[in-house]
């Protein structure tokens, strides 16, 4: 039972990173390998802000804003030139981005492991021991982020324009939507969501430049499991992967093989049902 709750909590974090991946996939049909490192880098920014004496929540909001700008800039400067390039070129650029962000973080903030504060109280009221406050808080934050995103895409004109340009860029351009900027906005939003995930996971795994490689893998697994095109699926997938990882890690295979769970989920989903549980199957014309 305890493991299931812990799994739900970490699953919530995977879900938010998976959400970021899904958002970029929806907008560009690309899987961002640098998503984890972007989240890591922005978490370092939050850490510096807090260390400089800022309160947690102001730093949190500021970091989300900085992440948004960073995402937009990366799309404009780095991704734009390879927009129509073959897949290999795009993947290589993502990998390049990954190692640059990773080493920049190491360069600026050093490789020593840092602890990151949790915004939630140390103990729950009423002596509840089933789940730690941070885990509960992380789930709550994930739900809030999901609800905000849903509202944004469903109810605002900008969200509608973004959905339109992802689904049918040519027609969207014809009705006057600036598709290029919609892509950049999508990147910005994804980076912001990733930053939230980074700040939620940092108190658990501690802050170091390589903290995200495992989380990113679980997020991939979650996104694929839920269907790479379905935001709701990404959240469900994240929770499933989180529970699976914790339960299997505790009772079946031990902690050392946890990452292999992600590998098995990824390969398994891609083989059995590449579109994921909630995804649509695509038929392409030859």
């Amino acid at each position, binding site marked *: 039972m305890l493991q299931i709750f812990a799994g739900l909590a970490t699953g919530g974090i995977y879900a938010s990173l998976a959400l970021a991946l899904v958002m970029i996939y929806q907008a560009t049909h*690309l*899987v961002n*390998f640098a998503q984890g490192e972007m989240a890591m880098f922005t978490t370092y920014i939050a850490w510096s802000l807090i260390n400089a004496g800022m309160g947690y929540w102001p730093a949190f909001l500021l970091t989300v804003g900085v992440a948004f700008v960073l995402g937009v800039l990366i799309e404009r400067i*780095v991704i734009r*030139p*390879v927009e129509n*390039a073959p*897949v*290999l*070129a795009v*993947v*290589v*650029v993502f*990998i*390049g*981005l*990954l*190692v*640059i962000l*990773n*080493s*920049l973080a*190491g*360069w600026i903030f050093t*490789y020593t492991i840092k602890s990151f504060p949790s915004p939630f109280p140390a103990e729950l009221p009423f002596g509840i021991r089933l789940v730690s406050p941070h885990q509960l808080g992380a789930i709550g934050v994930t739900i809030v982020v999901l609800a905000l995103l849903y509202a944004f895409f469903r109810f605002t004109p900008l969200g509608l324009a973004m959905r339109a340009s992802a689904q049918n860029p040519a027609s969207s351009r014809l009705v006057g939507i600036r598709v290029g900027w919609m892509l950049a906005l999508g990147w910005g939003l994804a980076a912001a969501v990733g930053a939230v995930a980074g700040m939620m996971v940092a108190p658990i795994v501690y802050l170091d430049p390589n903290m995200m*490689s*495992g989380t990113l*893998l679980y997020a*991939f*697994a979650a996104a*694929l499991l839920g269907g790479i095109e379905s935001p709701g699926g990404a959240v469900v997938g994240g929770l499933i992967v989180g529970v699976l990882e914790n339960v299997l890690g505790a009772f079946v295979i*031990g902690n*050392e*093989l*946890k*990452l*292999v769970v*992600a*590998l098995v989920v*990824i*390969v398994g989903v*891609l*083989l059995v049902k*590449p579109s994921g549980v909630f995804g649509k199957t695509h038929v392409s014309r*030859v």
Partner: protein
Amino acid sequence: MTKRTLSILILVLAIACVLPFVLTSYRTFQAALVLVYAIALLGLNILTGYNGQISLGHGAFYAIGAYCAAILMDQAGCPYWATIPVAGAVCLLAGFLFGLPALRLEGLYLALATFALGVSMPQLLKYHLIEKWTGGVQGIVITKPNAPAFLAKAGLALSPDQWLYFFVLAVAVAMFLIGWNLVRGRIGRALIAIRDHHIAAEVMGINTALYKSLAFGVSAMFTGVAGALGAIAVQFVAPDSFNVFLSITLLVGVVVGGLASLSGALYGALFIQFVPNIADELSKAAPWAIFGVFLIGFIYLMPSGVAGAVRLAIERGHHRRSTR
């Protein structure tokens, strides 16, 4: 192969044979590592460059090859040279098996699956049930081979570093010959056809499934052989030296050297061996920042890599001479 390329090749080989007698033993060791990387890059290039399948997890096959060699030498007392074909065979099988499910994956998804393989490999190697053989986190220490006695009797006394270099050179020449034969003929054309248009290739009667998984297997075999040689050269294997950054290093080498080019493997190997050494003096993080910048820069500015640039320069030279 024209007469000119043949003479260039012989010249390069002659220089390669003289190198260990003029370099210090540390430089000789580094040169051996360059050849090891070149073999691994050749393998990755067959898969990514010629067949168009992206692999972000070739470090895993390098690791399997290295562990094969180390375990055989450590547990079974195998002679070092006998471990090379075994490592190659094991990786051929492993690559082929991983290539079978990979058949259904294309482009991005294959990159994802292989990325997962690369990230989770160190954990697999640390698994406690196989610790008896792999040595767990500590890894395995192996001894460096000495030059065989008959060479010394013949009056050619080689230091272990020099002998190792020549051993690696011999394997590298053999592997390059295999690779060259593979890509210049029917099989190579089939691989390229699948890369360029897999439906058209299938219509022309190419068994795409077989060729793609075979390409995966052969590519893993090359990388595994390189891994075994690397383990013997470094005399040590440990799970954390085979992390995902090794796979990324190999990708850097292929992109910088030049996709779909045999000579590119050598340029790429020189790059990934020496550039980090130079950049290390700047900062611990600098090599990776430089790798990343080079990766993106090459994709933007020089997608055919160093090999492509060299080819272009030679062609321009020809052109100028013929028009004069």
